[in-house]
């Protein structure tokens, strides 16, 4: 099982990206995990508690959005969601479909943070990789 190293990478990436929000408290971390990513949510949740225990992220929620596998069918030209991981066939016409268009995602989508209202860092926030909303 490699969920612990996956979660450790999440903690590192979140810590790094929040450098520009000093004093912010992490409330929630949102992941997108494809059905082909070879990662199990229960195991992620279990490891999340361990990996964040000694960090400023302790107590933060981990929210995992499961991304289904979609394939492009060369035979009928459509994209469709796979009904089962046991058979990579076009859900529309039943032909074998090897062209996977989604389902391998293993991404950090967003982080919800709380800041003291008076905290600075609002102007100029949002570096090259971070866009702020809400």
């Amino acid at each position, binding site marked *: *099982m490699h969920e612990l190293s996956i979660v450790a990478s999440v903690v590192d990436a979140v810590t790094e990206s929040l450098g520009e929000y000093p004093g912010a408290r992490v409330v929630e971390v949102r992941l997108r995990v494809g059905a082909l990513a070879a990662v199990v949510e229960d195991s992620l949740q279990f490891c999340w508690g361990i990996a964040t225990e000694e960090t400023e992220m302790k107590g933060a929620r981990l929210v995992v959005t499961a991304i289904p596998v979609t394939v492009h069918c060369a035979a009928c030209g459509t994209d469709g969601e796979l009904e089962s991981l*046991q058979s990579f066939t076009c859900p529309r016409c039943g032909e074998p479909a*090897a062209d996977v268009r989604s389902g391998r995602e*293993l991404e*950090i989508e967003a982080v*919800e943070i709380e800041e003291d209202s008076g905290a600075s860092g609002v102007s100029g926030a949002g570096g090259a*990789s971070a866009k*702020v909303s809400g």
Partner: protein
Amino acid sequence: MTTRIVELRQGILKKNDELARELRERFEAAGVLVLNLVSSPGTGKTALLERTLRELRGRGKRVAALVGDLETDNDARRLAASGAPVRQINTHGICHLEAEMVGKHLDGWEKQGLGTRDEGTETQRSEAEGCVRIEELDFLFIENVGNLVCPSSYDLGERVRVALLSVTEGEDKPLKYPTLFNSVDAAVITKMDIAEAVGFEREAAHRNIRAIRPDIRIFETSAKTGAGMKEWLGFLEELQR
């Protein structure tokens, strides 16, 4: 208290993926074809590789191998007997190889010369004298840690990923581990010499592999008798061209 959402949209394994991309560019520039062999423990990765290294060398190819295991350098010793330069990567508990581990061992090779070892003992000998660099290789095989789950997430910069499945493991292995079998470019069914004795159902195995990866090439080999090696080696040479 103000709440805000910071959108990150970044790959969790971004660092590994970036490293793997750099490795892939380096391998391409060096003209070396890199393969990543994955399977469960005991499928026969090392046995297939022993024979593959030996036979490719017999065909005048310049080959080397990196072999990943949690502990011991037993596999590297076995492989080194083929005469090819071999290095062991011990992951010390980590259940898969990562791009960084591969990258580190390539640098070591270039400095120390192929066939030498990190620490002390005189195992993994090869005929290679002095400094052999990856630019001088035709093939580099990476034998991953025996595991059908985790290696599928980690790009090592290889050009071709190959899954191995032995006749004793059950024909439905690909259905049980679709994430891995879907990520590979070719499959090798190993231990064909005992297929009959264990009641191996060939059609079912092929059907299950293709259910998960429809366009895949499938080979059947016996590292013991040499059956099927001709097709497998032919495939490797075809990739190299």
